[in-house]
């Protein structure tokens, strides 16, 4: 599904990713762990197409397409989803209106008609209840004044509504209390399937206790220095990155 080859990326003339290579197959869950500043979020934003991240060299193939040639919106429409570490606020636009627009832009891409208002409300209620999101949150402006936990749940809600096949979760566990972490992880686990892959970026073992990864990669100085199964995450939790 995703094949990253020798990727080098810089931000503001400082090289962050160095010869990164990673393959993610269909249905696989990859966890990327690493200390602060190691470049984990750079992977997420580079794959999503953030224009602040400059590609120096390398290739990324996503579902037989050259991902790096695609605009961020095309990447989303092709099935890539980034759950932001710091979701962006959008004052003046209600969450319900925003969610309906993103659902409809994906429906349009698939050649479907816009969703009817009643059907959208039903869908929103159903998906929100899985994440214990109260419906009144959707009448507020997007992420404006949301707590850290509400913002992260809203990211997972979008993931559920858009039905992508590659999900990158950038420190989704940060800002979540124990109960929210559990309900969010349960929602993510329900979304696991043989044709949906995950890249989970995290500092901590606790998220991986709920979402069992197939592979764990340790990231340092912009590249993967060690890969293994979940036991690697257990070892890091005990011994640290040093």
């Amino acid at each position, binding site marked *: 599904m995703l094949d990253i080859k020798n990727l080098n990326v810089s931000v503001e003339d400082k090289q962050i990713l160095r010869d990164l290579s990673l393959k993610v197959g269909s249905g696989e869950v990859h966890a990327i762990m690493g200390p602060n500043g190691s470049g984990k979020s750079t992977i997420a934003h580079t794959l999503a197409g953030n224009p*602040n991240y400059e590609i120096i060299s390398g290739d990324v193939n996503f579902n037989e397409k050259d991902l790096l040639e695609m605009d*961020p*919106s095309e990447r*989303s*429409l092709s099935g890539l989803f980034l759950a*932001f570490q710091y979701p962006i606020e959008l004052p003046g636009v209600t969450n319900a209106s925003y969610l309906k627009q*993103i659902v409809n*832009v994906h429906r349009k891409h698939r050649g479907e008609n816009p969703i009817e208002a009643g059907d959208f409300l039903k869908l929103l209620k159903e998906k929100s209840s899985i994440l214990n999101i109260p419906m009144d949150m959707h009448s507020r402006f997007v992420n404006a004044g949301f707590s850290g936990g509400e913002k992260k749940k809203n990211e997972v809600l979008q993931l559920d509504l858009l039905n992508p096949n590659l999900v990158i979760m950038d420190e989704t566990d940060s800002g979540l209390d124990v109960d929210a972490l559990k309900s969010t992880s349960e929602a993510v686990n329900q979304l696991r399937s043989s044709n949906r892959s995950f890249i989970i970026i995290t500092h901590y073992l606790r998220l991986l206790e709920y979402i069992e990864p197939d592979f764990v990669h340790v990231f340092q100085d912009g590249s993967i220095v060690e890969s293994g199964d979940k036991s690697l995450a257990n070892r890091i939790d005990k011994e640290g990155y040093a």
Partner: protein
Amino acid sequence: MTNTEKNICSIIIGEEIKYENNSSEVDIDFKIQNDHIFGKIDILKSSKKFLINLSNVKDKKFNLELEISLNENSFLELRDESDYEHGSDINIRSTMNKNSIFEFFRLNKFKDSTKNTFNHNIELALNCEFRDFNFSNGSNEMDNKTTVLLNEENASYIGSGVMISNSTNSNNDLSIKHLSKSAKSDCSFKTVSRGNSNIKFSGKVFVDHDCSKTISNQISKGLIMDEFAKISLIPKLEINNDDVVCAHGAASGKPDESVIFYLKSRGIPQNEAEKIYVEGFLGEFLDKIPNAEMQEKAMKYISANC
């Protein structure tokens, strides 16, 4: 008096002036002299809110001198949702007597090549409320000036202005004079400047010496969408009393690229992402509009002109 009960009257100004007034609670008089329209609206009393729809259908420049008077305890809602095809020169003088309410909505489209001027001087007595909402797309040359005199205690002004333009050279002046104690004013101005537009807003708040317990807020924000577009926001405060709460803020800049990226990362193309961003920017204060119907119309105006 409730918001749902209304007397309704339409005044249509073309080559002749058409209106029908079946209410004894209002005196309306319009006439044309030498291509100038002279109008008078007196709300004598109002058991119900009085809604007047004013429409400009003239096929040449629209020149209007209008006097508005609200008697004690009266309530006027004045709407102008006209398209101005040929330029305009509008001068309004309004007088509000105690406990009266005046809601003034202007949602207008102006033709690029025209020149338009608008002047409104309004005086408020005890406990009066003036609610002023103006949505405009600018024109080649445009001057908007509103002067609000809060003459007596507890008079209050709430106003919002929105200007979205591709090619305007416009001056927007708002002057609010607190001339008695315990008066309130709350003003927001938002603008989106595109192309080679040059949009200026000057918001002056004056608080006189014996005007204790004054509350005044003023915020002006602008979005600069293109390389040659300009915005100038100038708040001015002259406060002559210590027992006041006065706040002001002004900010202008380009759209936040992180927001555009966030929207694009959800599949929304660049042009639609910018539109959503601008709609959100302008729509942030729509909840200040006191009635749902006009909120909806303002939202549609913004959406159609973004």
